[in-house]
């Protein structure tokens, strides 16, 4: 396998460059996926039937906490990739570990949110609005859950195999995924929660 020494490890082989580009294109598809969910959300947001409206169930504090947690996790994984490029494996693992912990906390708050909604009479089946609300948040949340397991698997491989062209490539792609989830959350935060409470 040809390794180009002038590039960071994650870009160093032809296959690595293909993987990264392929993943970017996948993220393009994810934009369309979440775009469709947002389109459905905006269409259904006022169709609450006999159930509660957005303004009645949203609370600002949990949402702010979730946003800050996810923003910081996006920062720490960025630092993780930076440490990886410096070849500092231990620092990188610490940053990746913190990212996953932050992601887990985010998830805990989101589950708390869901429980609150259900207690206030907004279940998945209540109305068109609650169905798309849970689906939009749930799709993002499911991505986070998948990311947690994926991240663990990558940390395991880095501990076991060190920083190789393969492991760094996987770690870099994972970081792209995680940042992307942060971008999606920003849009949920702005156009679902803040707009709903405006």
């Amino acid at each position, binding site marked *: 396998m040809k390794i180009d020494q002038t590039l960071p490890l994650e870009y160093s082989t032809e296959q690595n460059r293909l993987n990264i580009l392929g993943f970017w294109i996948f993220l393009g598809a994810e934009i369309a996926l979440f775009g469709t969910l947002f389109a459905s959300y905006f*269409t259904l947001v006022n169709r609450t039937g006999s159930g509660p409206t957005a303004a009645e169930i949203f609370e600002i504090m949990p949402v702010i906490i979730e946003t800050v947690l996810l923003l910081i996790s996006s920062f720490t994984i960025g630092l993780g990739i930076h440490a990886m490029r410096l070849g500092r494996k231990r620092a990188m693992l610490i940053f990746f570990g913190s990212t996953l912990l932050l992601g887990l906390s985010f998830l805990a708050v989101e589950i708390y949110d869901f429980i609150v909604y259900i207690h206030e009479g907004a279940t998945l089946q209540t109305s068109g609005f609650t*169905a798309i609300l849970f689906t939009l948040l749930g799709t993002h949340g499911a991505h986070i859950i998948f990311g947690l397991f994926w991240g663990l698997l990558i940390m395991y491989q880095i501990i076991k195999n060190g920083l190789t062209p393969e492991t760094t490539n996987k770690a870099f792609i994972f970081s792209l995924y995680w940042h992307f989830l942060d971008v999606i959350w920003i849009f949920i935060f702005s156009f679902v929660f803040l707009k709903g409470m405006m």
Partner: protein
Amino acid sequence: MNFFDRFAVPNPSITIYASMIAIALTVIAIIAGLTYFKKWQYVWSEWLTTVDHKRIGIMYLISALIMLFRGGADAIMMRAQTAVPDNTLLGAKEYNEIFTTHGVVMIIFMAMAFIMALMNFAIPLQIGARDVAFPRLNALSYWLYFFGAMLFNISFVIGGSPDSGWSSYFPLAGTDFSQSVGTNYYMLALQISGLGTLLTGINFITTILKMRAPGMTLMKMPMFVWSALVTNFIIVFAFPVLTVALAMGTMDRLFGTNFFTTENGGMDMLWANLFWVWGHPEVYILILPAFGIYSEIISTFARRNLYGYKSMVISMVAISLLSFLVWVHHFFTMGQGALVNSIFSVTTMVIAVPTGIKIFNWLFTLRKGKIEFTVPMLYTLGFIPIFTIGGVTGVMLAMASADYQYHNTMFLVAHFHLVIIPGVVFAMIAGLTYWWPKMFGFMLNERIGKWAFWFIAIGVCVTFFPMFISGLNGQARRMYTYSESTGFGIWNMISFVGALGLLVGFILIVYNIYYSTRYSPRNIPGDPWDARSLEWATPTPVPEYNFAVIPHVDSSEAFWDYKKKGYQLFRDPVQSIHMPNNSGLPIIIGAGFFVWGFAFVFGIWPVVILSTLFIFGCLAYRSLEKDHGHYIPVSDIEIDEQGGSVQ
């Protein structure tokens, strides 16, 4: 309902029981045959686990042909039922199931598979690459498509076929009106094969953008490669919309949500909206590769460079963007206001412009060409006038106010069949005939091929032209019968006769494959058509690694200029070649998805959870697996090249 009752077919008939027996016998015959001839090892290690794009292409091809006959059988049954007034051949429910499965099978499992087949086979060869960017993902795409198709096709013997139309509009497709599991099958089968298509899209964009032979700039790519690139972009951005719509439909049916219901704030129109946000780009996903194939065939058999290369590329890019801006024309009559309909009327007419440009480019390429009337060329020449008729009736339908008259009539059915059949089916048969010698090492018989062409071309016109008239007279689509006083009888009878002509044509194609397999000479050169692009620079049969030496490209007609102008293609010495290893994982993951989908259809949740875990387990296994592929040493390569290479 009793647990096992759900697996029974809701409206059984003799034909369904006969099919069950036929399916059982076929499965037994395949298993017994493979065991008797001791071919399990061969099939498993050479085909089922292959990551070679050429073999995956051939597997897509076989699947597409089988699906063509499944969908064709549905079509014949529909034409037979409506051939005479008040016919009792089929009941209303059976007719509903048949037109639904006809549409889904033909669009999703036949046409899509056919373009995947030809893209898989030809694209890496045309850009001078040894495989696609992600060979294993490519195999996974195929198996997801395959198991999605299987899941859809078992519906009619286990639990009942979907029966709410290929567009599956809610609330008809909701649990109130579609009580059998048929629509669940629709949702899950399309979800699984759609995932496969999305992965193909990502794979081919990466392949085309990153793995072209040195010197092949974007504007030197063969036109089929350009069309595939644009198509795959549309795939990547359109299929996620379908994914979401299907997920929401599944939740409505299985979890009691209110996305598309008519109560508690649900909005049934949202389904139609999302379906066509995907559905219209899907039309262009089917047609653009066909345009690419026609471009290749026209320049090959007119012996001229393609006229207006740049404008061809610009038109396709324009179409790819415009295709996302027209979807509302599928439901002009749904109740949105005049402003909305006007906007989408205009965008729809605008999209006819780049398509028209392409037609003129082909005509200008033909002008002063030395046209050779081979079978692929006949289909291409037949395509231009028939497609134009289909196209201009599309512009008629684009006028929102007039569409109130045409909507949901046979006029519409005539329009889209006259676009899709010459557009896609002709192109697929043409492409199949054109690339057949590269795939299998012998030519298809031209004489039988020409007979098949005339039956199909005339059959299409005879089948669908009468529908324009009966449609304008008011015959609605999807009606299983009509009374004699309507006067539709004569038109439908003509249609039926045309459909029989089509049937004869397709049987001739199968006969041609059989005949040519037996009698066609095997000593053909690598370039039997005297063609122009790089796939013909390989020896036949094409070795696993495609090119012993990666070619250098200096013009848009690389192989032609190599033959005629003395450009050098192969300049580097032979080196050992790195190739990916075969893997059983893609088919295993595909099978996991099949179990997942089946359990989901019937709401057997423990199995759903287990199969989900199994699929993720396979992904984790893949991540931890150490597999760096293998090298083919120089000595092996040179032995291969002593065959029929043109070098």
